[in-house]
């Protein structure tokens, strides 16, 4: 894969959406109710649409003979730059929604900044994405509140999910070399500028959900630099199956 900073910068944003879309897509037909099943796959579809726009752009600037399909499906694990949060499995509905919520808050804040990037394509994708992501955030915040402030069991499960996923939140604000370079060149977003706002917004919803904001300060990272959790291999095996079995399939 090409090694230009902008190419890698696009991947740090786009891979999050691809991997999360894959996780949500796994639930198609398995959601807890028809309405939530449809909602989660709709969110997956939005994310996939955004991903395609990013990869088409990345393919164009790659300078090699790459297509969006190559970028999405033919990289090895170490070449995916998604954060660890989005690759975590769908263990239970509360966990899926907790993961979604912790990502959506970040995603919307990022899109709001990215829409002003002087890079026209990134700005256009973000501007379009904001409209979709704000619905995602509304949906996941709503569920976190409903489950947190719900029955004894739903509250316990939601709290457990947030406590477990908390260790992946700090990585969202860790900057890779490509990100630092993109900031320096003026097209990228310095994610550290909205870290405080992120935790504020997250805490606000958790409090409204009558959940405890975790105090855990032990964070883990690595995904954005290609060092993933054990979950990633299984996910990629599924994601890449079709393209590897029937090479040159098109999206």
């Amino acid at each position, binding site marked *: 894969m090409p090694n230009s900073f902008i190419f890698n910068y696009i991947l740090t944003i786009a891979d999050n959406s691809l991997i999360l879309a894959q996780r949500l897509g796994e639930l198609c037909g398995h959601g807890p109710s028809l309405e939530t099943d*449809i909602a989660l796959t*709709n969110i997956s579809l939005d994310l996939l649409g*955004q991903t395609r726009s990013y990869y088409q752009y990345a393919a164009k600037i790659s300078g090699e003979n790459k297509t969006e399909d190559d970028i999405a499906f033919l990289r090895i694990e170490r070449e995916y730059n998604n954060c660890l949060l989005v690759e975590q499995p769908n263990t239970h509905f509360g966990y899926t929604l907790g993961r979604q919520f912790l990502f959506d808050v970040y995603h919307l804040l990022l899109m709001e900044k990215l829409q002003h990037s002087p890079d026209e394509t990134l700005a256009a994708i973000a501007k379009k994405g904001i409209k*979709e992501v704000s619905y995602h955030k509304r949906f996941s915040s709503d569920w976190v509140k409903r489950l947190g402030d719900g029955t004894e069991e739903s509250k316990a499960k939601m709290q457990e999910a947030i406590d477990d996923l908390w260790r992946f939140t700090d990585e969202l604000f860790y900057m890779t070399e490509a990100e630092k370079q993109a900031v320096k060149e003026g097209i990228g977003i310095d994610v550290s500028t909205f870290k405080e706002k992120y935790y504020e917004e997250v805490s606000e919803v958790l409090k409204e959900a009558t959940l405890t904001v975790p105090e855990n300060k032990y964070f883990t990272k690595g995904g954005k630099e290609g060092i993933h959790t054990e979950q990633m291999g299984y996910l990629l095996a599924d994601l890449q199956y079709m393209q590897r079995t029937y090479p040159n399939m098109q999206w």
Partner: protein
Amino acid sequence: MTLTEKPNIQENLIPVLKTVSDPEIPVLSVLDLGVIREAVEENGIVKIKLTPTYSGCPAMDVIGDDLKKAFSEIGKKAEVELILSPAWSTDWISEEGLQKMEKYGIARPLSESHDKDVLLGEKKLVKCPQCGSTNTHLVSQFGSTACKALFKCDDCQEPFDYFKCLK
């Protein structure tokens, strides 16, 4: 191009564009939906700029193919380009389109601030397209497609789609 700016569509191409509809809402033509941002004929080739309602909307590929087919039937070649900016808004749906939509059973998008209220279940504003009652409630923020939410009428008991406001 700003949101209010009219799309650049050549007069003589309109009859053909009118025959192409959204596969998910077949009563709406692509013109009603406002997804055509440009359609001009240059050197015998019809160049069309299409904007998706949602990034991942699967209808867009189908619409692109349908447009090419519709023009090939009158002996013209069409090229379709997908553009993202400016982002599509529900304001671009024509009044005629909104009326057709309601007749078809989909409640029309309200204004942005109203939309927030109804989707958070705070106010009852969405009118049932079957019986006209506003005694309705939100079942799910995501309906049969990304652009719709699912509602149910508490008077006539019928479920129906609401076209989410996108601005």
